[in-house]
């Protein structure tokens, strides 16, 4: 039987970044389960040495197309060209803004299934490739397959997979692609002004040992401020649920969960958080979870190590003493 082609599309342009490393590591694992071949599709401008690094994570092949610009439509055309020629069974994209657009263009052009923001992928004999993401209902994760579709595509959440250097030496083949189409990009728009924004620095959250989570049970500014003060004292980063972020209490970068970030601190304290699945997927790798909630049946207590039934306001007042 022919090997299945498992693609990882690298969008870092000039190097193999750690997000791509995470995807290749997962692809490698899937290739073992499904008799597959891991192919990294690299568009952009980089060196051969850099491309060779893909082998560290388990890639079998790199398809490299040199190009000077990072433009979704151009990349779509190049990707389509490669796909039409060598084909793919699964295509994994990161979930950067750029790749979200690119993957949507691709899925729409070829009318293939696309699952957004996966947190896991597996291969099963009866179902083929199965993609997992948060479901609409609050307490479960949906398992999704592609039907009637030439290939399966997905975007993957950052840090859902672990970047892993394999301990076998792999023969990596590098195939230089020779795209014959036009490299011209869209000229229907004109940038009038552009201000670079500080790229949101997430080091504080990625490295935080202690994180305080705020939910809708934190009802007033006073309680919120007390939690922030306590956060300073214990060197904890304060994050929130989607509801709290939507209410404008915290910026979006501090939203934890399915449509926010994933964290893995030593201690996570949930203040007034109900424990919807979309939030839990972001905190499930915390070493210890402490939950404060006035409803003794709140779902958050199901995954908490330490359960505290209390009013948040009263608790934090005492806690800040």
């Amino acid at each position, binding site marked *: 039987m022919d090997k299945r082609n498992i693609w990882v599309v690298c969008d870092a342009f000039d190097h193999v970044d750690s997000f791509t490393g995470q995807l290749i590591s997962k692809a490698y694992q899937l290739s073992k389960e499904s008799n597959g071949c891991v192919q990294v599709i690299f568009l952009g401008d980089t060196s051969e040495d850099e491309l060779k690094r893909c082998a560290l994570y388990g890639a079998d092949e790199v398809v490299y197309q040199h190009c000077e610009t990072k433009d979704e439509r151009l990349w779509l055309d190049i990707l389509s060209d490669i796909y039409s020629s060598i084909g793919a069974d699964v295509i994994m994209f990161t979930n*950067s*803004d750029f790749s*979200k657009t690119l*993957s*949507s263009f691709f*899925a*729409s052009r070829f*009318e293939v*299934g*696309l699952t*957004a923001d996966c*947190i*896991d992928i597996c291969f099963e004999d009866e179902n083929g490739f199965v993609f*997992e993401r*948060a*479901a*609409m*209902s609050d*307490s*479960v*994760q*949906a*398992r*999704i*397959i*592609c*039907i009637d*579709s030439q290939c399966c595509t997905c975007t993957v959440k950052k840090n859902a997979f672990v970047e892993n250097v394999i301990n076998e030496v792999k023969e990596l083949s590098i195939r230089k692609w020779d795209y014959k189409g036009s490299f011209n990009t*869209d000229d*229907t*728009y*004109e940038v*009038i*002004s*552009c*201000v*670079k*924004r500080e*790229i949101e620095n997430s080091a504080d959250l990625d490295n935080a040992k*202690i994180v305080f989570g705020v939910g809708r049970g934190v009802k007033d500014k006073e309680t919120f401020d007390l939690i922030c003060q306590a956060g300073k004292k214990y060197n904890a980063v304060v994050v929130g649920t989607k509801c709290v972020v*939507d209410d404008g209490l915290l910026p979006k970068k501090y939203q934890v969960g*399915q*449509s926010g970030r994933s964290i893995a601190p030593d201690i996570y*304290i949930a203040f007034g958080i109900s424990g919807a*699945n979309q939030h839990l*997927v972001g905190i499930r790798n915390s070493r*210890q*979870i*402490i939950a404060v909630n006035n409803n003794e049946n709140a779902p958050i207590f*199901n*995954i*908490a190590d*330490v*359960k505290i*039934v*209390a009013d948040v306001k*009263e*608790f934090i007042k*005492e*806690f800040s003493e």
Partner: protein
Amino acid sequence: MIKIVVCLKMVPGKLIDAERSGLIINPYDLFVLEKLAEFKKTTDISVIGICMGGESAREGLVRSKALVCDDIYWLNDIKFAQADTIATTKTLSAAIKKYIPDADAVICGGHAIDGETGQVPAELSEKLGITYFSSVADIESFGHDSAVIVKKDEGSEMTVRCRYPFLLSVDSFLTYASNLNIIALKRAQKWEYKIISSEELGIAQTDCGAAGSKTKVINSVNIIYKKESIEVGGSIKEKADHVKKLLQQ
């Protein structure tokens, strides 16, 4: 006159407010409607809403009409139900091509708060073959042959002039409409909403709804494993002290 199509999705109100029942206008789409209502006071635009949804979408459509829409196409057919993003995109693009082929701009909310995939706008622009702008934070003006928008990316904030036709994916939202006028609302309630079936649209059954979908949810699993938790009892002071101790370790 600038012709603008707005894609509208109705989502469960309880996602915003536990007390709210029924469906409401997706907050990202609501931002677009309010923005266009502002423009309408000063600029010659016509706003056409397009919505795929069942009977429960009516109230949201009435509000959309009252806010700003001059016309609304309501793609309402059980055959459209349970569409994934590919089937949704095919249905919406078929409707836009058939009823509003001369649209200058198509505007979508960047996400629907019940699905959060954010894929439909990009997929739709590809199907319609028009330029796509993602992460749009604001619209500054609609001119004769182009519009000026503000785009906020991961690393930059850009002001861009884009030539018609184009599709915008807007990443700002509102949870409550502020511009709703009672008289307009009453009038909108009496308005006759055009209901478009799959047959009327001329789309094959295999291209829309569940049958046209390329993805399928096979089952749902709980990936969150239950833990044995230790309950801390006692007075509030004892509880707080317990946590303090854990943090100091």
